């Protein structure tokens, strides 16, 4: 049962990533990426990390991707043009990416697998993550809120027509 869910989610994730790679219409790419993010949230639920799964849908698929879709629609771009002359990049990039993926997969496969045993009963819950966030990781938490303020101010200033 879990293998079936894993297989469906994996096919969905990889297929939508391939759509992002190949289609020329940017709105279709953005929507494919949104479905990829939702399938990754499915993986998180399968692994038991519920809070991160919900956050993935609310923050990533529901806010960041909506922002990207907005910008794509506002800019009203046409289809992406093909490059004028032949380039070595077209066949070199896939080969190098494949070599990179194989090396990475080999390294990860060789590590000592612990197996997916039974997690503690409060594994992905909000209570545990909240407690960690406000005790051990309190300093990064405050710093990242400052970073968000800086990003907001930066984004508004950069996108303004006249300062």
């Amino acid at each position, binding site marked *: 049962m879990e293998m079936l869910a894993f297989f469906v989610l994996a096919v969905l994730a990889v297929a939508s990533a391939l759509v992002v790679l190949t289609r020329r219409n940017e*709105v*279709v790419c953005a*929507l494919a990426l*949104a479905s990829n993010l*939702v399938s990754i949230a499915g993986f998180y639920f399968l692994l038991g990390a*519920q*809070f991160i799964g*919900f*956050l993935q*849908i*609310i923050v990533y*698929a*529901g*806010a960041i991707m*909506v922002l990207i*879709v*907005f910008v794509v*629609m*506002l800019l009203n771009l046409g289809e992406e043009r093909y490059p004028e002359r032949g380039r070595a990049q077209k066949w070199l990039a896939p080969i190098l990416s494949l070599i990179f993926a194989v090396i990475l997969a080999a390294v990860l496969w060789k590590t000592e697998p612990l197996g997916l045993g039974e997690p503690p009963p409060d594994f992905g*819950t*909000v209570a545990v993550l909240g407690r960690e966030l406000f005790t051990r990781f309190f300093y990064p938490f405050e710093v990242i809120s400052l970073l968000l303020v800086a990003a907001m101010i930066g984004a508004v200033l950069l996108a303004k027509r006249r300062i």
Partner: protein
Amino acid sequence: MSDFTFLIVSTLVKMGVAVGALMGSVAIMTWVERRLSAVIQFRWGPNRVGPFGLFQPVADGVKFIMKEDIIPASAHKPLFVLAPAVALTTSLTAFSVIPFGPVIELFGKKIPLVVVNMDGGILLAFAATALGVYGIVLGGWSSRNKFSLMGGLRSSAQMVSYELSMGLSIMGVILVSGTLRPFTIVEQQAGWFWNWNAFLGGWQFLGFILFVIAIFAETNRLPFDLPEAEQELVAGYHTEYSSMKFSMFFMAEYAAMTTASAMVVTLFLGGWQIGVPVPFEGWLLWILQIGAFVAKVGFFLFLFVWVRWTLPRFRYDQLMNIGWKGLLPLTLLNVMVTALLVAFGVVGR
């Protein structure tokens, strides 16, 4: 049958009940909207199709099925067809965490009357609402029509802005209840009606009002419905849609209204709790509790229609100002005050 099979079967039955109830409420709401608006505007309303016009939803349904389905030649066909489906799916999914009844005992097993009883339950409703923006944005863009695009972008900007206030205004309830599971939140509001979260039980008077305003904006209902009746002739993001696809957008809006009313009732007004102690037990009590839930949701649907036909609509810049400069600071104030009250032990369950 084994525990796992029983879980699957009971969840499927509850899903059927929830979807049936939502679709039924959509059909009833079309009739209620038109008759109630007629009462408010001192005219008759539909009264031809059966006693008091009660078969009007049936007539509407037949009309929508029989109409010609037009897809504009320059529209992006896959996304054009996908948009109403996304809108309706997310509206129906958000209802799955709402508890519509107590724990009933059937065939010797206890069944809580909620489709999904996860630990982070209330976040599922927000996730589904966040994904609902895509339906509108896609509908607006794929029509390849400048009015639709602007209407779709305005509507999604409005929905994203008020999503923030919606999420923050229930933060007070979560602080007081100490859990994200809607079933537990409802169970904690037992007893008399002043024990509900919006009243003395949780001191969430401000949060309740802010949440109600936020859901009016989230469901694109008056006074926040500029994206829908924008140029008054051109209907915003569903301009180019006809027959069944238009009716799917329509159904998605009413289903979102019902889900939002159910969320208000669950989080602030005690869900299926009756509010007065009754000396019944067993099946009679359970039916009374489900009836209490339905009555409270019905009251909020009535409120939706009443406000729609009473207030004029906001201009778009007024709408965004209210969302960012009015509601958001008030919700933050609510969270801070509630956090102080909970920390000093004044409220809390």
